[in-house]
Structures are given as C-alpha cells and as structure tokens.
C-alpha cells in the first residue's frame, strides 16, 4: 500500500516545515500550500487522503476552502482538520457547519495531531 497523502494549507511556513518533517517521519507524503486559493487548487488536483487547513489564510479563508470542498461530491469525503489560533466556541461551531471533521487549536502537541490523523485516515 502506498503512502497516504496529506495536504497542508497553512501560511506560516516554519510551521508547515516542522509539521511536514513530523508527518514524513511517520510515513506520510506531504504536499504544502501557503494560501487558500492555491490550496483549493491542489486539493482538487492531488485528491489527498487528508487536508490540514488553517483558518486565517491569504486570498481565501479556511472556512471557504472547507465549504467549497465539502459541497463537491468528488472531494467531500476527504477528511479536513482545521488549524486555528482562535479557541472561540463560535469559531469551532462555524468550522463544524462548513463540514470540518476535526478542530485543533494552536499551539498543539504533535502527538495530538498524529492521533487525529490516524483516527481520520482509516
């Protein structure tokens, strides 16, 4: 079985590098994108097994990217983990409304992210 493909859409490049390193060490293939529009394009093109999506992104925010993917039959089954620095209950609710499968609040522990990924990619 080939490596599972994960797309990270996050504008903080250092964070993308650190998470990529961690995921690759755990046997995942990682594709990175640094803004919403590009991320949406890569999600459609690459059809990853899971998407890690930041909330506040340049060009298109995470809610919109998530909503657009979840509304499309072709991509709606791709699990999406939302990354955010905001821990407001209303933000989490909005994330759930647009179809996010999980919500991770920054700063997070690497193990929490790995566990969540394992849980969503079965």
């Amino acid at each position, binding site marked *: 079985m080939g490596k599972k493909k994960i797309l990270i859409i996050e504008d*903080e490049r250092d964070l993308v590098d*650190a998470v990529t*390193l961690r995921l690759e060490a755990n046997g995942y293939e990682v594709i990175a994108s640094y803004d919403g529009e590009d991320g949406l394009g890569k999600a459609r093109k690459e059809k990853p097994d899971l998407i890690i999506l930041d909330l506040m992104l340049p060009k298109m925010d995470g809610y919109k990217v998530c909503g657009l993917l979840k509304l499309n039959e072709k991509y709606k089954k791709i699990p999406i983990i939302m990354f955010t620095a905001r821990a407001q*209950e*209303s933000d989490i609710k909005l994330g759930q409304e647009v179809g996010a499968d999980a919500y991770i609040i920054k*700063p997070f522990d*690497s193990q929490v992210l790995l566990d969540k990924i394992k849980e969503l990619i079965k």
Partner: protein
Amino acid sequence: MINKKDCGSEGGLRLVPQELDDNPYKKFNMAFALMSIIPFLVFVYIIASRLFTLNIFCSDIGLIVFMSMAVSFLGFYTGYRILKSIITKIIYYAAKAKHSDQTKSEFVVSVAHELKNPLTAVKVALSNLRDGILGPISDGQRRAIEISQGVIDRMSRLINDILDIHKIEAGKVEISRKFCSIPEILEKQTKEFELIAEKKHIKMAKDISGADLRIWADEDKIARVINNLLSNAIKYTPEYGFIKMSTYRSDGFIRMEVEDTAAAIPHDDLEKIFDKFNRLESSAEGTGLGLAIAKDIVGMHKGEIWAESRPERGNKFIVMLPSDLRKRC
C-alpha cells in the same frame, strides 16, 4: 481640547451617540425642563398673590419684577449652557477613553493570536528534535529540549490567559450552562496533575461529601477555576507536601476548597493575589493571571472566591457557587 470636527452642527459631539446606548442629552434636557418648572411656578405664585393680574408690571415695583424675571431667565439659560458644556466634555472624554481601551484590547488580542503561529512552529520543531526524528540525541540535549518545551508551554499558557482575561473583561465570553457534576470535574482535573504531584512527592486527597453535588453552570469554565486552583497549589506546595480538595453542599451553594501546605500567604496579600499580574514574590513561575481568571469566572456564576492562610500550615482557597443560578434570578 475637543476638536471642532468632533462636534455636530449644534455643538453636540457626534462621537457620543455612537459610543453610548442612549443619547444622554435627551435626559439632560428633560431634567432641565423639569427643573425650570420650579421658578416658573414661583413667578406664577407671585403674580397670583399680587392682585391676580399682570397689572403688577404697571405698578411701582413693575420694573423691579420685570428685571428680576429677566435676570432669572438669563441666569437659568447661562447655567444650562455651562452645565451642558461640562457634561459634553465628560461624555467626550469617557467615550474617548472607552474607544482607546477597546483599541488597546483589540491590539493585545491580535498580537496574542499572531504569537501562537510561531510558537506552534517552535513547539512542533522541538518535539521533532526530542523524538529523534532528526537523528539520535544525548541525554543532555534531551534535557535542554525539555527545558525549552517547558518555556514554550508557559508562553502558551500566558497567551491563553491574556486572551481569556480580555474576553472576560470585554464581556465576550460565551457561557453555556447545564447541570454538571462537581465530583466529575474534580476527578478529571485532578488526573491532569497526578504526574507532577508524583514527581514532587505531593500527596493529593479528596473529600467529597453528600449527595447531589450538581451545579447549573458552564462546565468548561468551572473546570478552569478548579484547574487554576490546583495548578497554583501544586506550584507552591513544596516536595512531600499535601493537597486536599473538598466539596460539599451548603444552603443552596456548592462549596469547594483547595487546601495546601505551601508557605502561608501574608494576610495583607490575601485579596491582592486575585488581581491581574499579581504574583507572590516567592513565585518564579506562573502568569499571574490564573487567580484573576478564576475570580472573573466565579463572578460570572454569581459566586465568591477567597483565600485563607494559616501560618505554618498552608493556604486554603474557597469557592462558593450557587447550585442553581436560575433560582436566584
């Protein structure tokens, strides 16, 4: 100085109606109108008591009566203008201070959120190093990484505390109340500190007496209060110390106590410790916000929190919360 551009066509400040819920000038004008009834009635009385006619103005004292009326109305009008100008200035500066506070608060919140991104990157990078993803590390290197991780965690807590205290003070906290069990919250929160307590050889005990220790409250917020109190107790209690948590029902209230064997807090400091950024001199860790947040949350639930200290024995933090807030509304 109040700038002209801040003023409306009638000299009123445009800022005022935007910043305040109700236009205070309406109330001010109404109050002044009511006040003006008194001198008006006095004049009516004078005229009525002197011949019941306006002929008074044609009598010997007519000029004096007319002059005194004119002076009274002039004084009344001048007083009205002066008071209005004073009130305008007060409202203007109050609105300006409120606006400035909001701007500062928004800035702090925005900076706190922005700090979370690089902090997360450092946290993940350090855990990559610690777990040997970039190659094997020595025990000394592992210790150095763990120290750095501890610092990152403290910074994260500080950022979260700052965000929480701003949210509470700005009244932006979302509260979702339901019936929750205090023993269950205590159990969950205690588990979080078991490992640290074990490392410091601190004995933790619980005394949960009586039935129905449920409370109509926001479970996460109450958990935060207990967490902050336990975190404080663990932090200040020396090795081989003792921490006891007790809870019981008392007259429509749930009483929770966290008792420790830390150095007794001086009596003069017992109230100050609940102020923001107020830490005891002996404290090396902590954000200085934990107890302030706990106090705000307890206040939001119409309860009370206070501390008692006993020389040579330690401190006790007590929280009293109404078990069902709906019955008190």
